[in-house]
């Protein structure tokens, strides 16, 4: 470890100070990765407990209130601590400066501050969830719907404060990335040469900047409601709980695109590399990210179709929600066209990328009956919704994150994982995931409502199957992460560019040196000029 500073790669720094006070985007990204994967496992474990309760009808391991606490734990940790920071804070932090030929993000210290703020928010959220005696654990669900969140005696104020703080972290990260992409691109890295992952991060960042403050004010109002009784969300005082729903979803619907857009960006990077073909429809994919970000602000009402909403509002929100399908389908068709006649290699990153397309298409298509007024009346608040958003969040975002982790693993850690084991893990996950959530589409369609700890005998078989799938799903994650961790210690050293990608991040050594590039690179072409035998 006695290299000169210039040759030192970012992983070589040792000690608490060099990491916790590091302004290096790669170290910050890695610290975020550790944090969010830890919370992913915690929240995943609570999902296992939820599914265990649902193995059989009636009381299995917890009572009704205990069940409320468990699904609140699962939802709140997954959403706020894992999936919102998700891909941008981890892979985005690590890769964005490397991909655009920059030494760091625009505001390195602000980047570190975002991470610290994230940790502060984590403390508040965990206090509300598990920091008090069991009878006071939060039981409102992650959505904190009024009026129950105004009445509940559990830790609504600490979690609200925590989510407010986490929102700050998210805003600052989005702001940092936006300025970085606008201002720090290397010479020749024009907007139309920008890697699609960066376009996706950019679009997600815009949502982070513009939607998060609205949930911020909503949460402040909820705190004020509980402290002063301002009455905004309390009908007895002249307020309206549906106002809370509107304001909450004005953020929380766009936020699902903060989660999914970066995953779409990961897939767009992987497909051309493993098809040895230029990405098909580069501009269509790039601009469809922006289009999704734009439309995302005008569809929140579809969460309120049965909550009390005028006929015309429902009609308009339904139409606008259908509009999301257009840029999304543009992406899917262009990805598939990229595969067409390519020289496809089914390495594990590519397996994940293909699974993303398959699962996300199911997620998107099952969104349509939920956006349709007549069918939504039946499906609303049923297991159909649960299955739908797990196909987007797990089948989309988590699979996208895993695709990215496997793809950039050699760059991030300078090691290789075991390819065979990662394929085994992938198939366990793919089967386990579908076995968990495919039955839930049917359960919802047959009328099983969500958030119930008990159910009628007629739903027993499908619930049992779903729970068994969840165990396989959970095992798959342990196997996958075990393999990745094993690779850190026993994996063989990775080459600079094992997958022969043309993107800038692969031109630096693995792991990258502290200052990324010795000299600022000049970009002369886009990053997707792959040639296969067919189109050479």
């Amino acid at each position, binding site marked *: 470890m006695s290299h000169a*500073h210039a040759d030192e790669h*970012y992983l070589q*720094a040792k000690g608490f*100070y*060099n990491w916790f*006070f*590091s*302004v*290096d985007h790669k*170290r910050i990204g890695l610290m975020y990765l550790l944090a969010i994967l830890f919370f992913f496992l915690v929240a995943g474990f609570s999902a296992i407990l939820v599914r265990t309760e649902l193995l059989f009808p009636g009381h299995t391991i917890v009572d009704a209130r205990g069940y409320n606490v468990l699904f609140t734990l699962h939802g709140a940790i997954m959403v706020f601590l894992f999936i919102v920071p998700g891909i941008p804070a981890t892979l985005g932090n690590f890769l964005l400066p490397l991909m655009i030929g920059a*030494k*760091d993000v*625009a*505001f*390195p*210290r*602000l980047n*570190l501050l975002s991470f610290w703020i994230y940790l502060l928010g984590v403390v508040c959220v965990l206090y509300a969830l598990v920091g008090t005696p069991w009878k006071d654990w939060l039981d409102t669900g992650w959505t904190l719907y009024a009026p129950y969140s105004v009445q509940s005696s559990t830790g609504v104020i600490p979690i609200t404060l925590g989510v407010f703080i986490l929102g700050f972290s998210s*805003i600052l990260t989005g*702001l*940092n990335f*936006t*300025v970085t992409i*606008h*201002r*720090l691109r290397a010479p020749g890295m024009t907007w139309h040469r920008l890697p699609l992952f960066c376009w996706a991060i950019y679009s997600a960042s815009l949502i982070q*900047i*513009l*939607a*998060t*403050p*609205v949930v*911020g*004010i*909503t949460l*402040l*109002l909820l705190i*004020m409601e509980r402290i*002063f*009784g*301002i*009455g*905004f969300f309390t009908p007895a*005082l*002249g*307020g*309206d709980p549906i*106002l809370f729903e509107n*304001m909450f979803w*004005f953020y929380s619907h766009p936020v699902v695109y903060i989660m999914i857009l970066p995953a779409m960006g990961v897939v767009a990077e992987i497909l051309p590399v493993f098809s040895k073909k230029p990405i098909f429809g580069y501009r269509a994919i790039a601009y469809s990210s922006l289009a999704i970000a734009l439309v995302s602000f005008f569809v929140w009402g579809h969460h309120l179709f049965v909550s009390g909403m005028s006929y015309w509002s429902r009609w308009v929100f339904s139409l606008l929600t259908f509009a999301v399908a257009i840029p999304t389908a543009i992406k899917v068709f262009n990805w598939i066209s990229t595969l067409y006649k390519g020289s496809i290699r089914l390495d594990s990153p590519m397996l994940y990328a293909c699974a993303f397309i398959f699962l996300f298409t199911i997620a998107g298509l099952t969104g349509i009956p939920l956006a349709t007024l007549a069918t939504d009346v039946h499906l609303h608040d049923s297991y159909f919704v649960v299955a739908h958003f797990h196909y987007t969040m797990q089948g989309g975002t988590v699979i996208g994150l895993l695709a990215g982790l496997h793809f950039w693993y050699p760059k991030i850690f300078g090691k290789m994982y075991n390819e065979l084991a990662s394929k085994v893990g992938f198939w366990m996950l793919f089967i386990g995931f579908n076995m968990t959530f495919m039955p839930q589409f049917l359960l919802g369609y047959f009328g099983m409502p969500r958030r119930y700890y008990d159910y009628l005998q007629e739903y027993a078989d499908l619930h049992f199957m779903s729970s068994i799938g969840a165990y396989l799903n959970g095992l798959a994650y342990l196997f996958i992460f075990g393999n990745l961790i094993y690779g850190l210690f026993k994996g063989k050293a990775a080459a600079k560019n094992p997958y022969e990608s043309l993107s800038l991040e692969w031109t630096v050594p693995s792991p990258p040196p*502290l*200052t990324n590039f010795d000299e600022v690179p000049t970009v002369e072409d886009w990053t997707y000029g792959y040639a296969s035998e067919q189109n050479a």
Partner: protein
Amino acid sequence: MSAPGTFFHAHEEDPVEAYQNFKFGMWMFLATEVLLFGGLFAAYFIFKYRYHELFVKGSSHLDWRMGSLNTLVLLISSYTMAMAVDAAQRSENQKLIRNLLLTLLFAATFLVVKGFEWIPKFNHGIYPGTDIYFSIYFLTTGLHLLHVLIGMFFIGLLAVRANKGRYNSENFGGVEVGGLYWHLVDIIWIFLFPLLYLVGSV
């Protein structure tokens, strides 16, 4: 102990680039502020639509003269802030410090007037939660007040740094970005004033 790439040893940036980044970042941040207040404005319009009479009655308890005075005070403070930026860009340090302190003075005046408005209301038993109108009134003016305080903190910081001779025609980004923030605080009040004080008079 500290190595390159840690908080106190970040690599050097080109000052012009840093200035441009900083300004861009602040504009983005102002967008988030607009959306933050936007949520409150949305609540205002919904409840105003539902409880028009309540809003007219509540508004009649406010003194439009005090509101006008504070509007004037903030507008002048925006002017002195703009003069401070101008002074920084011309390397006129004394003028910069003077204008920053004047801005602080006007901001403090705003707070005092606000105090004269709030305290009698508390004495009459009017609080957030008294009714929807006064909840809106205290929340919007309270959140705005918080922004005035944050603005004052940063203007004070600028004054201290200006006193050390940090700003000149080569390096005025901090003052300019601080000014951007202060103008936003001003403009939010420009919207709040008619919505809260002048409801019944149209």
